[in-house]
């Protein structure tokens, strides 16, 4: 501390004071200087950390080798489809022709007066929704053509289908002709027609009398123009054509039979039995004629003449009807001036004709319960929507006298998502009949609802190969490519190497490094022009960062099997000023020759030699290398197998519910147990497995937890229900709640818990969870995750892992910026120093406060003293005056 000099001069007071204050303020200035220097370092580290952060961010998109191997997918017609390609795609041009878009099924109830009033009596009724494929044509089955069609034909304008007039005229005399006329308009109507076989009256030959011909009579029996039998004049009854002779003529081999077969005519029954019936399968009219010549009473017997009555000849024509099929399974609208003549009724409708329903076990089924509290259209709608069972219910009003329709739309598109709606009651009670009449829908049975839109797949061809997809997103029709089709039509799809993406990735890598390098240079270097040193000149941390990054970029990447292992090989090198430069020609050559290997130079790649082993992920701690994989235990699923084979037919009673416990933990958690309702019905073993699987999977407690099961019939005919999950937490247990008991299906069942995969990787211990193996901390394979999805125990090839430049640099940046990283610990240190100076400064500030108090005290003391001196001086002046006055 400087000393204060005193000269004794009055004029020196100012100088004394200013010296005093300069000394007193000296520490404060020092503190400020110290702090400013710390702040400068801190701010320099701020820019450094920012630069490292920006560098890291720019590496973010380059750390996965697959990011480099992208292919671009360009459709020629973007209206038809769009596409995205992964690295698995193969470059080339693909011709895609979309003929049909996927859609969901929509079912509509008949109209009802009110959406709020009760339907039925309110008895508890369970409505089950199952999903699957409906087969069998969707359309209308007509009746036999009516009226004098066979002779006069069907006049023009008699029939329109879906608004299109069918051209009919006097030649439209048979179902076959009508079907041809309808099919001529198929492209506009969307409907195809087929004629049903025309069959003669089943009782036509009942009472066939032996034919007797007189002196001038002849008789011939023709079926569809084929002569079955004939007799000349003067033949006594029983000697010529009899029921027996007809049967004999129809006994193989015979020319008659051949002629009939050639004419497309078959027969059933016998004339003797009276049930001989001819059928013409092509739907053309079938004429059965008795041709008689001679005098009026010249012939007796024949068809309908068992009593030997006179036969004047006869002609019978068997007509058939048509069956309409909608090409897209939508309802068909029939109109025209005489649809009845065509055997059809005016109106709109359609059903599955002779359909079957095959449940898809992979789509969860669901159940809603309707009773007196919700047996209205709105109540059903809300119950269905709330149940979340894959169906959306809405109410539409068409403005008619019975306006309200309940509409169910499946949430899933695809032909496998057709609905089957079943209703069941409780125990022995049947379901409410009014509800059943409104809602029952089974392609193979009652179809009380109307299908207004059929479940259908997307249909397309790729280079002529037919592909179907449940949705308009078509994956893997072309390997590695996902197509999204938006309308029907044709488009080519060009899949090509995305070289511009790779190029821009590499350019951004170079730029990111150069930016970081620029910042480091500025901070650690000396600016000769402005004669200023960087804020971190000579700072060990900063120079260490600089050299670490540089060293990383100049070393080779180990563990790579591709063509490149260092940056120079793809045209990236350091120039004299320390920046990275990209040699475009060399880089383009690398792209052209080994496109797929460039990514591995930058990003992390994991490869496995066994195709049932897949690389999942790694961490920054994983060391590059090739590791031998040895599996000692495969992952398995928890399963429950019935004690005995399942009966050929199993009936699930109404109101059957089971308590299912799936993937339970130790200790047991009640959240893993849920009540599952099974749709009542009688099932084959295969159907039963599907019903069990989709019912369990349709339980929201499981679906929301991501748990599911698969059910199947094993080779012994036993029902096996297994958890879809693998590993020690995979298990399943069932118990009955009501209805058909689990014991009746699973009696003596054995439950097996799942196991985790186990083994070693490069000799290092790994931990298994389900099908996933993860390398243990502290080993070379730390954090390396692989999935073993199949195969057997034993040696399973190798797992290799490499870290490209971007991946390594990203890890380095993470480490530097991390909590214990170089930059962080350095800035933490500086911040602590600043805090210390702050403390000292504050302490000194307190001291200044003390000085101030002292000054203040002194000032007031002097003030008081001045007042006293004033008093003294007044007294003395007064005494002086008194002396003068008295002298």
């Amino acid at each position, binding site marked *: 501390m400087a000393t204060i000099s005193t000269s004794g001069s009055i004029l020196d007071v100012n100088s004394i004071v200013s010296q005093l204050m300069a000394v007193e303020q000296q520490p404060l200035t020092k503190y400020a200087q110290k702090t400013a220097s710390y702040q400068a370092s801190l701010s320099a580290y701020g820019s450094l950390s920012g630069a490292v952060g920006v560098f890291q961010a720019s590496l973010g998109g380059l750390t996965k080798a697959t990011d480099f191997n992208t292919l671009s997918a360009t459709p020629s017609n973007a209206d038809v489809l769009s596409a995205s390609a992964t690295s698995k795609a193969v470059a080339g041009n693909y011709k895609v022709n979309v003929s049909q878009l996927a859609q969901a099924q929509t079912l509509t109830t008949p109209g009802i007066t009110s959406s709020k009033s009760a339907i039925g009596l309110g008895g508890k009724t369970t409505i089950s929704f199952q999903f699957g494929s409906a087969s069998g044509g969707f359309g209308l089955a007509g009746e036999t053509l009516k009226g004098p069609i066979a002779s006069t034909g069907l006049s023009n304008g008699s029939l329109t289908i879906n608004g299109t007039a069918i051209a009919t005229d006097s030649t439209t005399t048979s179902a076959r002709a009508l079907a041809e006329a309808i099919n001529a308009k198929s492209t506009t109507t969307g409907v195809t027609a087929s004629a049903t076989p025309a069959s003669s009256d089943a009782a036509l030959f009942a009472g066939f009398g032996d034919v007797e011909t007189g002196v001038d009579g002849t008789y011939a029996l023709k079926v569809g123009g084929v002569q079955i039998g004939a007799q000349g004049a003067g033949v006594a009854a029983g000697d010529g054509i009899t029921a027996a002779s007809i049967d004999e003529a129809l006994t193989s081999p015979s020319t008659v039979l051949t002629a009939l077969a050639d004419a497309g005519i078959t027969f059933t029954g016998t004339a003797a039995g009276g049930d001989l019936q001819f059928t013409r399968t092509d739907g053309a009219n079938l004429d059965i004629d008795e041709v008689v010549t001679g005098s009026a009473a010249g012939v007796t017997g024949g068809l309908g003449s068992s009593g030997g009555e006179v036969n004047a000849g006869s002609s019978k024509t068997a007509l058939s009807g048509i069956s309409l099929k909608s090409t897209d399974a939508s309802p068909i609208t029939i109109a025209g001036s005489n649809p009845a003549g065509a055997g059809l009724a005016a109106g709109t409708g359609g059903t599955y004709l002779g359909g079957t329903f095959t449940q898809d076990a992979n789509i969860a089924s669901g159940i809603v319960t309707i009773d007196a509290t919700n047996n209205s259209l709105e109540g059903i709608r809300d119950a269905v929507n709330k149940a979340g069972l894959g169906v959306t219910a809405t109410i539409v009003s068409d403005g008619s006298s019975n306006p309200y329709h309940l509409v169910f739309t499946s949430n899933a598109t695809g032909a496998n998502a057709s609905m089957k709606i079943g209703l069941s009651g409780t125990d022995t009670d049947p379901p409410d009949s009014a509800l059943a009449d409104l809602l029952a829908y089974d392609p193979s049975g009652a179809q009380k609802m109307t299908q207004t839109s059929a479940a259908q797949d997307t249909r397309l061809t790729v280079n002529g190969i037919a592909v179907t997809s449940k949705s308009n997103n078509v994956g893997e029709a072309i390997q590695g490519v996902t197509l999204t089709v938006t309308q029907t039509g044709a488009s080519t799809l060009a899949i090509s190497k995305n070289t511009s993406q790779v190029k821009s990735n590499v350019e951004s890598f170079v730029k990111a490094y150069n930016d970081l390098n620029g910042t480091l240079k500025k901070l650690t270097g000396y600016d000769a022009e402005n004669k200023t040193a960087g804020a971190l000149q000579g700072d060990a941390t900063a120079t260490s960062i600089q050299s670490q990054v540089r060293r990383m970029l100049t070393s080779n990447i180990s563990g790579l099997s591709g063509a490149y292992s260092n940056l120079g090989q793809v045209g990236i090198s350091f120039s004299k000023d320390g920046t990275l430069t990209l040699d475009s020609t060399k880089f383009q050559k690398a792209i052209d020759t080994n496109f797929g290997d460039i990514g591995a130079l930058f990003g992390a790649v994991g490869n496995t030699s066994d195709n049932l082993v897949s690389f999942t992920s790694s961490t920054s701690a994983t060391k590059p290398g090739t590791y031998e994989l040895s599996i000692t235990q495969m992952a398995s699923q928890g399963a429950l197998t019935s004690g005995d084979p399942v009966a050929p037919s199993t009936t699930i009673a109404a109101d059957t519910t089971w308590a299912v416990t799936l993937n339970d933990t130790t200790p047991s958690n009640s959240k893993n147990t849920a009540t599952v309702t099974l749709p009542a019905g009688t099932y084959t073993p295969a159907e039963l497995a599907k019903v069990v699987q989709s019912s369990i999977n349709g339980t929201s407690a499981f679906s929301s937890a991501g748990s599911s099961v698969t059910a199947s019939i094993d080779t012994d005919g036993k029902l096996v229900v297994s958890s879809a999950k693998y590993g020690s937490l995979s298990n399943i247990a069932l118990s009955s709640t009501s209805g058909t008991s689990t014991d009746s299906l699973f009696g003596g069942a054995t439950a097996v818990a799942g196991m985790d995969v186990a083994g070693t990787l490069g000799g290092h211990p790994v931990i298994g969870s389900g099908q996933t193996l993860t390398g243990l901390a502290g080993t070379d394979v730390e954090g390396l995750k692989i999935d073993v999805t199949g195969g057997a125990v034993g040696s399973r090839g190798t797992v290799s892992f490499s870290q490209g430049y971007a991946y390594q640099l990203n890890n380095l940046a993470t480490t530097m910026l991390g909590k214990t990283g170089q930059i962080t610990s350095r800035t933490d240190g500086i911040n602590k120093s600043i805090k210390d100076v702050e403390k000292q400064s504050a302490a000194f500030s307190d001291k200044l406060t003390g000085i101030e108090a002292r000054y203040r005290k002194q000032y007031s003391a002097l003030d008081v003293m001045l007042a*006293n001196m004033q008093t003294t001086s007044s007294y003395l002046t007064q005494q*002086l005056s008194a002396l003068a006055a008295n002298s």
Partner: protein
Amino acid sequence: MTNHDVLCVYAAMGDLTTQMVAAANASDWEHLQDLEQRMTAHVAVLKASEGMVRLEGEQRARKATLIKQMLDNDRKVRDLITPWMAQLSRLINSTGTERRLVNAYGGV
């Protein structure tokens, strides 16, 4: 109190004021205050007893001289105190500002 006593007090006071001037010159403010308190004490004694004492001739002249000397010293002391007090006032404000800065910026 005798005439002699009175003059002695005045003489003592005169001496004090001389010492006060010296203290003020040396910026020995604590000592100055001390001296001044002693002055005040003497004044109090004088105020109480001096009225009954009558000085004549030489003694009167001696008293007048002492008083003049004291008044002169008084002015000298004041001339030294006043700028110091002004400086003090500035210092007080200055350290106050310093402290407020410290409080506001957390130590610079």
